[in-house]
């Protein structure tokens, strides 16, 4: 191990009554790739924000290269040699890659000198990048490479990456790991935040595990099993899905026939010739790298957006291609959109009021005057039945944590007793316990005779839940294939190359 780059001692940060970080110690050496593990809400992001100057700790000290420092701003952190790659990219969509790299560099413009420097850097670290293309034409992996290059241009001694692989294909992730290994070999310290245990075990030599704001363990991840790591993160053993009883499949409840959809936005994906059938009692998952048309497909199925060019959508046997979302709900469909706040719920509305959004067409809440007794009763039942932890009996949606709000949203739809449930990203940004709860709920729903369609970027989730998996690539959907017969490698190939190319290669 090289010299000590960073030493955090006794870092404490409270938000009101919640201690997001409670006397956290962490040491990072030069040449080390150090994993920071923990569930959502364990305090990883808070700690990283403190280290990057976005938050100030209530107490504790930060030493960089042995010197005690305060980091009042990201600028100060960068001056100390700390670079960060965020989970959500902060790039200007209409600017080119090179322009985006130039922006945070004081006094630099996207000229030939900078281009030469960036190209040299990119070559050195094996980061393939098209510098002159506007960002909106680039894939998630390419965007991330811009963010990384941007950080590398400032010659960081420490690089922090927040869940960098969540938007990458397996191949892109491998390329990233190679880059990080090069960087570490040249003396930088790398902090790698993730909850994907396999890749942590593959890449990192040390891991600090946070739970409830405290460090619960520091260990060599290669020396312990993934199950042991997970147990440390969650606290009481990994939560497994309970297999549901064998059940027969019924009639098709969702049918897409040759569906082509034009998108409304400039940066959207056009859907081409999509075929899919989901039958009663079945769970089908749509996998794929984000941004390949999944959001557009969800909107077309729910009736929230997109202009259907050809083909048809049938729900419970009825053609609903030109019907609105409420007509589809009347036929027994329920929808859980990707955005919990602002799409599935009104952020400032209490949970009881948020019942109205998806219930007003079908739930006999009153045609003109709303039955507030009933909306309150529905909300209470959802809270109770789906174990939604709330700070008060009827809080605003925005006051719930991500996992609890997602349980509420999924529960609200299940309480409608749908025959067809379409869920976009059921556990995106949700902690392990809540995710397991939601997945189990959906499996049970299918077992009780409903058709369930799950759109997920999380391949593990898709494989754990689905009877069949279809893969979305470039606006086209592969045929749905039974899970036991499908290997991760095959899915990975479909995710990167699409069905036709994959078939050609096979």
């Amino acid at each position, binding site marked *: 191990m090289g010299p000590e780059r960073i030493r955090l001692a006794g870092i404490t940060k409270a938000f*009101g009554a919640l201690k997001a970080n409670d006397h956290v110690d962490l040491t990072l050496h030069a040449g080390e790739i150090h994993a920071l593990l923990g569930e959502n809400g364990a305090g990883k992001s808070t700690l990283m924000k403190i280290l990057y100057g976005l938050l100030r700790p209530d107490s504790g000290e930060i030493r960089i290269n042995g010197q005690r420092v305060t980091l*009042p*701003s990201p600028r*100060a952190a960068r001056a100390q040699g700390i670079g960060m790659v965020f989970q959500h990219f902060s790039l200007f969509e209409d600017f080119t890659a090179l322009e985006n790299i130039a922006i945070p560099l004081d006094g630099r413009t996207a000229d030939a000198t900078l281009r030469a420097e960036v190209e040299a850097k990119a070559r050195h670290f094996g980061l393939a990048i098209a510098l002159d293309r506007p960002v909106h034409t680039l894939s998630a992996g390419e965007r991330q490479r811009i963010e990384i290059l941007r950080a590398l241009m400032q010659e960081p001694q420490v690089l922090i990456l927040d869940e960098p692989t969540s938007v990458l294909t397996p191949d892109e992730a491998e390329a990233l790991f190679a880059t990080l290994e090069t960087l570490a070999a040249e003396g930088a310290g790398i902090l790698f935040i993730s909850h994907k245990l396999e890749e942590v075990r593959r890449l990192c030599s040390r891991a600090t595990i946070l739970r409830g704001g405290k460090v619960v363990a520091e260990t060599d991840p290669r020396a312990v099993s993934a199950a042991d790591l997970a147990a440390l993160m969650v606290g009481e053993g990994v939560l497994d899905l309970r297999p549901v009883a064998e059940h027969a499949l019924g009639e098709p409840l969702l049918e897409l026939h040759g569906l082509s959809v034009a998108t409304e936005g400039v940066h959207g994906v056009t859907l081409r010739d999509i075929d899919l059938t989901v039958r009663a009692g079945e769970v089908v998952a749509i996998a794929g790298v984000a941004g390949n048309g999944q959001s557009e497909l969800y909107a077309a199925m*729910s*009736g*929230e*957006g997109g202009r259907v060019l050809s083909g048809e959508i049938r729900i419970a046997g009825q053609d609903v291609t030109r019907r*609105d*979302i*409420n007509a589809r*709900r009347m036929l027994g469909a329920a*929808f859980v*959109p990707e*955005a919990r706040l*602002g*799409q*599935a*719920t*009104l*952020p*400032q*509305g209490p949970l009881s*009021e948020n019942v*109205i*959004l*998806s219930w*007003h*067409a079908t739930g006999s*809440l*009153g*045609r*003109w*005057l*709303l039955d*507030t007794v009933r909306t309150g009763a529905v909300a209470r039942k959802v809270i109770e039945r789906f174990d939604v932890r709330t700070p008060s009996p009827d809080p605003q949606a925005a006051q719930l944590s991500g996992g609890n709000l997602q349980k509420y949203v999924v529960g609200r739809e299940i309480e409608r007793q749908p025959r067809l449930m379409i869920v976009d990203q059921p556990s995106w940004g949700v902690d392990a316990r809540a995710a397991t709860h939601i997945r189990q709920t959906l499996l049970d729903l299918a077992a009780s005779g409903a058709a369930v369609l799950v759109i997920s970027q999380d391949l593990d989730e898709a494989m754990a839940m689905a009877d069949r998996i279809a893969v979305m690539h470039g606006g086209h959907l592969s045929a749905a294939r039974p899970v036991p017969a499908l290997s991760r490698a095959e899915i990975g190939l479909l995710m990167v190359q699409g069905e036709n190319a994959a078939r050609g290669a096979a």
Partner: protein
Amino acid sequence: MSFNIALVPRREISLVRQMLTPFLALVVALLIGGLIVWLMGRSPVKAFDVFLREPLTDPWALQEVLLKSTPLMLISIGLIFCFRANRWNIGAEGQFLLGGILGGGVAIATHGMAGPWILPLMMLAGALGGMLYAAIPAVLRNRFGISEILTSLMLVYVAELLLDYLVRGPWRDPKGFNFPQSVPFSDAAQLQPLFEGGRLHAGFVLALLAVLVAILVFRRSLFGFAVKASGEAPRAANFAGFNEMRITLVVFLISGALAGLAGMIEVSGQVGQLRPGFGQGLGFTAIIVAFLGRLSPVGAMLSSFVIAVLLIGAESAQVSLKLPFDLTRFFMGMLLITVLAGESLNRYRLEFRREAA
């Protein structure tokens, strides 16, 4: 070292705090207003007396306050529908004028006739006039995506010119010594006082009724929820299947109808004929009223009274203290600023930060 000030969101906002804020804002605005009066070399105490005490204690002035608050209340209640839905109807003044023009048109057409049907017909025409006029920016937005802020505002000037043309041209009173005004309305076309010897008319009752209906709509109705959802989170409204374009149209129609009705009430109950400038900018003042009332119907009612007191007080202040009317406008602006500042400080607290350069 440099300092900067950051707005940090508060986690909880206490109810007491929310209730007290508008009053505190009023006090702060009064103090600033008093300071200005003092700097102008007049006695602030005397000014408060004329501006606030007299309109509230003198029975005649009190009646004038209620009369002045009537159009403000009706228009601002309508505007609340638009603003809650995040649609920006800036042209209530134009819809107010169109309501007056169409309502007054009925009065002119039925001149010399009598019958209890004339007033209801005028109200209908007034509401319809404002409604159709408000439909123009809504349709332009829905059909072509044109900003309703611009179109509704520009239509105000069109309405003013239309009124000018009518009272100087086809509707000019032949016996009016060439003044730009219409014939005086017959008794049957004028709202009569509710009490013997008073001036307060049924328009005020209609305004209170509008407040009550608006309370019910926003507290309990699906439509009120749809309006709120559409304004707060358009994607959630879309998820609920509330049609965005239909909401745009309906909130503009409601807002236009109420402004038009207010216009008809103003010409029938106050002016008694059509003449240029009967709008007095009330359609714009109502925007301030709606925001002072924090976009709630009860709030709009209360702030209608407050602004009406100021307007009436300003009239007597002009006479007795020789204070310019612009001072009142300044004060209304000041009041809006203090209320919005109070609102912001409720949601956020100021944090002073020191930063190494």
